[in-house]
């Protein structure tokens, strides 16, 4: 999966799960989602679940820090970093219910 594909999957998840209620259907890759209040700590955990279940990366406790979830770009970089450092884990098709 390319960086662009990962970012698109993340964008779709973040927009559909957290942003639509604010009437936002787009998100800038560098938009601060934490500071703006769109994503809180529970939303970060839901995102972690999405990364693990859908994108097939294992997110360690040490990875769950604000810097890795502040923006779409940071989340994408986290996935890329974790994929680069881990054996291939096939991602699931589609988004879990």
């Amino acid at each position, binding site marked *: 999966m390319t960086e662009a594909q990962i970012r698109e999957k993340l964008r779709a998840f973040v927009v559909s799960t957290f942003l639509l209620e604010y009437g936002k259907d787009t998100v800038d890759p560098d938009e601060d989602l*934490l*500071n703006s209040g769109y994503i*809180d700590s529970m939303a970060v*955990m839901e995102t972690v679940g999405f990364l693990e279940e859908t994108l097939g990366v294992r*997110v*360690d406790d040490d990875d769950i820090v604000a810097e890795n979830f502040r923006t779409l770009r940071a989340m994408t970089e986290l996935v890329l970093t974790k994929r680069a450092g881990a054996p291939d884990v096939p991602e699931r098709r589609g988004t879990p*219910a």
Partner: protein
Amino acid sequence: VSQQHDRSAAHLPHSSADEDRASRVTKDTDAPLPHAPAIALAGHKIVETKDLYRLPVWVGRKVLYTVLPVPHLFRLARAKGRIVWFIPARRRRVLSRLERFFGETKDDADLRRIGQRHLEYIARRQLARVWPEIRGFSGHESCRVEGIEHLDAALAAGKGAILATMHFGYLGLIKPLLRARGYTVWFVGYTGTGRRVPRSTRLGLFVHTRLLRLPLVSRPELRSPDAGVFADLQAGINLRPLLAALNANDVLVVALDTSGHHARERPGSVRPIPVHGTNVLFAPGAMSMARTLDAPVLPTFVVDSNDGSAIGIRLEICPPLALRQSNRRREDLDTGLERFAAVFEAYLGKYPHLFHCDGAGTIAELRVGDRVKVKGRLGEDGIFVALAVKIRPAASGTRTRLRGAIERVDERSKVIRVLDRDIPVPAACRVADHTGKRISLGDVAVGRMLELTGTSPAQGRFVPSRIRLWPDDWDALEGTVQSVDANGRTFQVLGFTVATTEATKVKDRTGRVTRVGRSDDGE
């Protein structure tokens, strides 16, 4: 214990990491308390003059803790509070703080009555903090627990329970009082230790901690994990251990008024909600967990009790809040927080003296020439984002300080780079480690936190006269305010533009009476 996940929690991670984290928290409430974890004492003085009065005070305290029944200790504490009321400086300070918060809602006689009781409460709270460590929490059974049936009913559903509270009353007693009654309770907060190096000498630490085995609340880096205010689980962005605790049907105690760490990480996520007309900042994390896991949230407070009980302290657990569940997360959380704030407001009205008033102020109070201490973080854009600002009277001194990580050391030209500024270090400047031991500039590794104390002429460059290694990881500035933009919520100090946010805590020590959050309303 039910391990079933809620439908809405489908995305939640529930891997072995959850259990790993949970298993790191001891489940044995009867386990002996770990005392005096190892700390680095290298560089500490062996003995100093202050030990001459510290040691007898500690011995006296040990005697009292050993022989006096706990109700008598609480009576002594109340008497101490009454005596403190007659110290003019303390009385003025507490009245000033109360006036800030209660302002027009209380007259002078009310404020004086509340102030007097507040000082008694402060002394009793100090004792309450160490009480769980006095003779095995002796006398705890005399504290009434009201509403325990609400907690039992909540736990019967198998989704754990969140006891929502505030920095109000005897917050630190919630955990030990419930643990003593057999509940598995975890206090959620900042678990960091070792933030400060103990100030005592080696002799002092030996006598206090090893010989007398006194309760260690006064030293955050040493106190027992069972001390009420000691956090078991880290508050923050990683909720895995908290979710694991709820999945295990345990009880979490969460103070919903925000911590500095929350504000530093996510200043935009805190919710200001008026309580008695003053904005109080709430963190939504606990409500968010409750919303996703369908866990009950029960407002809980430990308050003074006039029921004739020996100690006069009562734990009150309220019925679970009716939480809104819709597809609009933010509105659901705000509604939950507002409902909790309403309960808290009622408690505050009933027990105004139990308020942890901290001298809050606003950026609008700042004047050019005021002295400020600012704690926060220098951003990549060169703006210093303030987490906390302390305003002091202009005449409070001329000390100027910078704290930050050292970015570069040029030993040859004697220039260091801190907070994105090149700062020449005069030959006379003293460089020391955090214990005061002299070191050379070359010994300072890039990335270490430094505190620079010196002078800064009106338009001139900061000139340090003393540099020392600093154990904290905050950037900080201390100096005179050069300009203020109250509308833009920024000001300048030491040439840095300091930005404040809704999460910035402003403490005013000048005695000017103001209210939190009013500046934005134009009042």
